[in-house]
């Protein structure tokens, strides 16, 4: 029984947490991919930027959380999202829009986004330093330990308050995205641009405004994902490239330009990561004595050693590119 609880903690809860973060990042990447037609490499640093805003606000108003009974970082999230969204729009105006007006190829846009990511990285580390930071410097991080009603279950299911907030917020964003894309004028226009940009233009859809809405959504989701991840673990300014690969993998797995696919892709990648680094030897240990002699039980039976976690999203990416480049849900953009 303890083994199963261990599995729930290490694989299911952790996987759902990191999967939620990937999903929110991937929604933004996939929307940008669908509407502006390039892979936005600055997304990881946009997440870090959002978390950094939330952290700065937490330092400025450390008491804000207590008033409401939630972590201060979470209370500051809307402001951080707004700031990041505005920055995203401004970045587009200064760096991407002029290139689009020059009709450059998508690869040049990708390169420009790498330029932007380096600028963000430089600024974040200039002002924020490079060491990891913890949101809970003035508050206590609530950790819930849930005992299961089984006799042989001495371990408990562990879930932290930031994780619960992360799940709730992801759920909320999924519904919000669904509502925006299907019920609002600009959301529908985003789908139209993603479906057929030429026809969208001809229909009189104002592409510039749709672009702005896209960046607002992508920017605020990035900020939320970055902040919630940092609340759960810590704010690491050097996270960006490590986040970028799983997020791209999630977007491509889901089918590029396909927001629901991105959500599924996020969880696929998240669970794949936790499943691969999970030590399966734990499940075999109870049968240690009944195993055949030649089967020497090693203490670590993880599919992938933790230090090589980054290979998991890459492997998924390679498999999907070979087997089904359009993604599970047939994305528009190949």
């Amino acid at each position, binding site marked *: 029984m303890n083994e199963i609880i261990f599995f729930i903690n290490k694989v299911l809860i952790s996987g759902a947490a990191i999967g939620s973060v990937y999903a929110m990042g991937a929604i933004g990447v996939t929307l940008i991919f669908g509407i502006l037609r390039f892979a936005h490499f600055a997304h990881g640093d946009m997440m870090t930027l959002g978390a950094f805003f939330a952290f700065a606000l937490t330092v400025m108003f450390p008491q804000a959380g207590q008033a409401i009974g939630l972590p201060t970082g979470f209370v500051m999230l809307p402001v951080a999202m707004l700031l990041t969204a505005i920055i995203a729009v401004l970045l587009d105006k200064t760096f991407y829009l002029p290139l689009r007006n020059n009709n450059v190829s998508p690869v040049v846009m990708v390169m420009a986004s790498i330029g932007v990511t380096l600028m963000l990285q430089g600024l974040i580390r200039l002002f924020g330093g490079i060491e990891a930071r913890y949101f809970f410097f003035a508050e206590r991080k609530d950790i819930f330990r849930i005992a299961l009603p089984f006799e042989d279950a001495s371990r408990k299911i562990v879930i932290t308050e930031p994780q619960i907030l992360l799940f709730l917020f992801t759920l909320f964003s999924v519904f919000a995205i669904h509502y925006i894309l299907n019920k609002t004028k600009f959301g*529908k226009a985003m789908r139209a641009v993603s479906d057929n940009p030429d026809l969208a233009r001809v229909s009189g*859809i104002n592409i510039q405004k749709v672009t702005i809405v896209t960046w607002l959504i992508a920017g605020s989701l990035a900020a939320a994902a970055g902040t919630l991840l940092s609340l759960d673990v810590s704010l690491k300014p050097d996270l960006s490239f490590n986040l970028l690969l799983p997020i791209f993998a999630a977007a491509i797995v889901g089918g590029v330009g396909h927001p629901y696919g991105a959500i599924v892709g996020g969880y696929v990648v998240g669970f794949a990561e936790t499943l691969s680094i999970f030590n399966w030897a734990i499940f075999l240990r109870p049968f240690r004595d009944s195993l055949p002699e030649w089967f020497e039980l090693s203490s670590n039976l993880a599919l992938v050693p933790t230090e090589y976690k980054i290979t998991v999203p890459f492997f998924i990416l390679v498999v999907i590119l070979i087997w089904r480049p359009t993604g599970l849900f047939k994305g528009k953009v190949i």
Partner: protein
Amino acid sequence: MSLVNVSNLVAGYGNNAPILQNVDMTLQQGQIGVIVGPNGAGKSTLLKSIFGLLNIHSGEITHNDKSIIHLRADQLVQQGLAFVPQEFNVFESMSVEENLEMGAFIRSDDLSDSIDKVYGYFPPLKEKRNQPAGELSGGQRQMVAMGRALMSNPSLLLLDEPTAGLSPLFMEKIFERIIAVNKSGVTVLMVEQHARQALAIADMGFVLVTGQNAFTDTGQALLQDDDVARSFLGG
């Protein structure tokens, strides 16, 4: 007063050599204009040029006597123009009704009357309103495309081969709808392969050959012209 006037137009794709060479064309308010000509003559190119999608080297295009060559597509829609491209003219992943809503992007008022009007023109669309446009038949897609264009309440409707690939029966139906739309006060300028049938309903006909005006006259006159008949209407 002419609603739309093209004079001495030289236009083409990007920096390539221009396709249209000094094309002239005038259409009065309330008319149906039909552009015919052999494949590759530049018919689609002419419509796209009017709709601001191509590089205009020289010449002038006016709508209500105002120059429109420097306007963006969404500004043209504001001005009362609407365009149905030859292909890829529906949002395939979106429902019929959403397609119609996209045509009305520039409007901020209530759309239900306009949507009902479109369903009035094209009754089959009403029962398919929630189906993705990509799943419809060719004729129904064409209806969605025209309906989408009508949603911005245009005064000038540009249609590029609205009957391409349709059966003769369906072609009749589409022409009939076009006439109905025209009767409601919308000026129509369309490109057609089915030259005879199209010229029959046209107030004005324009024959383009290799990017130049070959003949321009009323639809009836062109149908009766022996030269035109011999070279372009198959005898």
